[in-house]
């Protein structure tokens, strides 16, 4: 079965991103496929390259990167939600006149069309929300 996962929870403050990671691992362990992970609203912060995680804690962004590298996952960050929260890639930095950018490797900025396509392509779409 084909799954897509929507992450609206930030990597800290709420548990949703961690739950989504656990769920993604369980989906893959069961032999299903993950078509896309779409990061939306405050969930875009999962894609930052600048997180500095205490040594006794697990970095959520790094875990997404590792999982994506291992299973060739498509990690898409909503571009409209991202740029207004200060999460940009090199291309957007050029567009907005910034000298720096912070989108982590393995993530890609794209539009809501990617979410629509994921919903059309996937058998199940599961959302992990921000408040908790």
């Amino acid at each position, binding site marked *: *079965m084909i799954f897509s996962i929507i992450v609206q929870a930030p990597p800290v403050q709420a*548990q949703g991103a961690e739950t989504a990671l656990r*769920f993604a691992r369980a989906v893959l362990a*069961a032999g299903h496929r993950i078509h896309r992970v779409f990061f939306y609203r405050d969930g875009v912060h999962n894609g930052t390259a600048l997180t500095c995680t205490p040594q006794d804690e697990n970095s959520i962004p790094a875990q997404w990167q590792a999982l994506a590298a291992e299973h060739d996952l498509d990690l898409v960050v909503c571009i409209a939600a991202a740029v207004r929260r200060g999460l940009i890639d090199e291309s957007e930095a050029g567009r907005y006149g910034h000298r720096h950018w912070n989108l982590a490797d393995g993530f890609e900025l794209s539009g809501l069309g990617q979410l629509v396509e994921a919903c059309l392509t996937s058998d*199940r*779409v599961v*959302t992990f*929300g921000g*408040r*908790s």
Partner: protein
Amino acid sequence: MILHTLNQPPANAACFERCREAMSSDDTLLLIEDGVYWALPAFAARLESLSGRVKVLAADAAARGVDLPAAHCIDDQAFVALCVSHDKVVSWF
């Protein structure tokens, strides 16, 4: 047949009530994250109408010290299986 997930604690009762009102008789409710607190005995009456259709994510209950009968708790693999056995998943948060 829909799987509903709820991650809000009893302090956000409005979220739970919206979820409960949206549920059909063959839907299932999975309590996750702070939503597992709804499984405490104090809230049993609120869950009465959903009898037999409420599951709790075991890791989240254990992390919060919510001690429940094993029959109500499911692991992450069973969460995925519920997603497969239901037509769609609706998340309340």
